[in-house]
């Protein structure tokens, strides 16, 4: 009974048991001003007697008079504003201290049940709120996806037509300005796409399986091949343990980290990028790392590293939208892992991450 999930059902059952326990013949269950259950009397009668309820968590006996005389036993439920009022007819046995003790124990059981119901109701309400917030967010990113991209396409499209087909009739500085419009349009397009990718990450279900980490690194490097072309860059891949993760997301982690490593080591004569793994704490499995000897960053800003649209370099020096590491952070987090970095200005950066708990992690699905 005390595991009931709804208040009214709990009140009804609690009242029935209390009536049996005390040998009374009627009663009601009130929570604050609300009568949740009635037994053996009319709602009017219960409403009239409601004043008896809700005064403290002690048990008391109230003579009601009448002929034959009737008696009410008011049982307050500890730590709540609810009480059970039991009304006995002429044959109600007189209560002894044993019966009173039982009734008191029973009252605290019911109170526990009531508290539980309240918590369940609270969780249900919160879940409903969360689900609706999620749906709103989804509608919002849908709108961004469609409505923000359309005007961008027009800006970029018509600027491109001007640049490609009317370039000959335009003065040089006009062409320069048009190029700036186009570059900014392209940049904004990337921002919108990255932001969408980021928001989609929170919603999509993890499809975990055992993955050869080395394969994920190799696929990431294949994708990044255009960025290393024509550069003197040494890429060292150490021994990498397998892991249980969503393979596409793991690949995304390596794409983003390696792409950063390649980008920020771009001004090095002999660029060096290293991927490896080392033993970690007992409870979180191996620590993977991606290291470069590039521009690094000031550790004073390390806390901003994984925020969306946060950049620690000027866009004149290194291009980017500031979403890549936020995506990596979210993926690692969703796999139950941690990510952190060590760096020094002009002496390279190392990003470490763990992927513990991938098996246990479950996405809450919206109903």
């Amino acid at each position, binding site marked *: 009974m005390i595991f009931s999930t709804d208040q009214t059902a709990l009140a009804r059952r609690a009242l029935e048991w209390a009536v049996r326990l005390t040998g009374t013949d009627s009663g009601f269950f009130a929570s604050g001003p609300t009568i949740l259950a009635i037994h053996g009397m009319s709602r009017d009668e219960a409403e009239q007697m409601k004043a008896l309820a809700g005064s403290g968590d002690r048990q008391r006996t109230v003579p009601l008079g009448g002929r034959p005389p009737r008696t009410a036993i008011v049982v307050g439920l500890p730590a709540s504003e609810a009480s059970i009022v039991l009304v006995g007819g002429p044959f109600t046995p007189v209560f002894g201290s044993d019966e009173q003790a039982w009734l008191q124990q029973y009252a605290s059981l019911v109170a526990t049940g009531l508290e539980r119901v309240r918590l369940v109701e609270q969780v249900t309400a919160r879940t409903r709120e969360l689900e609706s917030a999620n749906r709103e967010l989804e509608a919002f990113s849908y709108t961004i996806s469609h409505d923000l991209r359309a005007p961008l*396409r027009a800006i970029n499209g018509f600027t491109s037509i001007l640049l490609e087909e009317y370039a000959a009739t335009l003065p040089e500085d006009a062409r320069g300005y048009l190029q700036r419009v186009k570059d900014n349009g392209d940049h904004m397009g990337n921002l919108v796409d990255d932001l*969408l990718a980021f928001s989609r990450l929170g919603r999509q279900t993890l499809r975990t399986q055992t993955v050869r980490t080395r394969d994920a690194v190799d696929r990431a490097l294949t994708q990044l091949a255009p960025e290393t072309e024509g550069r003197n860059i040494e890429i060292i891949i150490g021994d990498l343990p397998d892991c249980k993760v969503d393979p596409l997301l793991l690949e995304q982690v390596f794409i983003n980290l390696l792409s950063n490593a390649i980008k920020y080591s771009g001004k090095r004569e002999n660029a060096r990028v290293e991927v490896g793994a080392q033993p970690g704490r007992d409870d979180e499995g191996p620590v993977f790392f991606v290291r470069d000897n590039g521009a690094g960053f000031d550790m004073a800003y390390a806390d901003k590293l994984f925020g969306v649209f946060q950049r620690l370099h000027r866009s004149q020096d290194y291009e980017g939208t500031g979403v890549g590491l936020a995506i990596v952070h979210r993926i690692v987090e969703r796999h139950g892992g941690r990510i952190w970095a060590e760096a020094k200005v002009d002496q390279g950066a190392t990003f470490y991450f763990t992927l513990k708990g991938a098996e246990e992690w479950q996405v809450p699905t919206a109903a």
Partner: protein
Amino acid sequence: MASPDGRVDILMVEDNPNDEELTLHELRKYHLANTVQVVRDGQEALEYIFCTGRYADRDVNEHPHVILLDIKLPFIDGLEVLRRVKQDPRTRTIPVVMLTSSREERDLIESYRLGVNSYIVKPVDFDQFKESARTLGMYWLLLNKPPKAA
């Protein structure tokens, strides 16, 4: 823009005049835009395809080679237009290409469920956009042999 004998190669269902102009611009460049019929919303698209309302005197067996269909349209959306085209035996064989801004997986899945022939996300990048417009026109008008209407 239909040819003198009333034949239409491409039926373009697009409510955004910018996207329309950009697509036509590319199709024109490759001489693929001779007979493009543009309609602005899902309602008009259905009237055109099924020869009702404003297009009552058209012959329903006179199919466009391909329908380029935006998803987000006024009145009746692209998915509904797609559903009706693919449900009707008279129009089922017309190739339909979804051309949309939406990158949402659910739109893509729903489109394929309804029997779309191709699904293209309109790129923000104009070079990519040109490329899609061009290959699209080439593929569906020049290379693809549509089956004879049932």
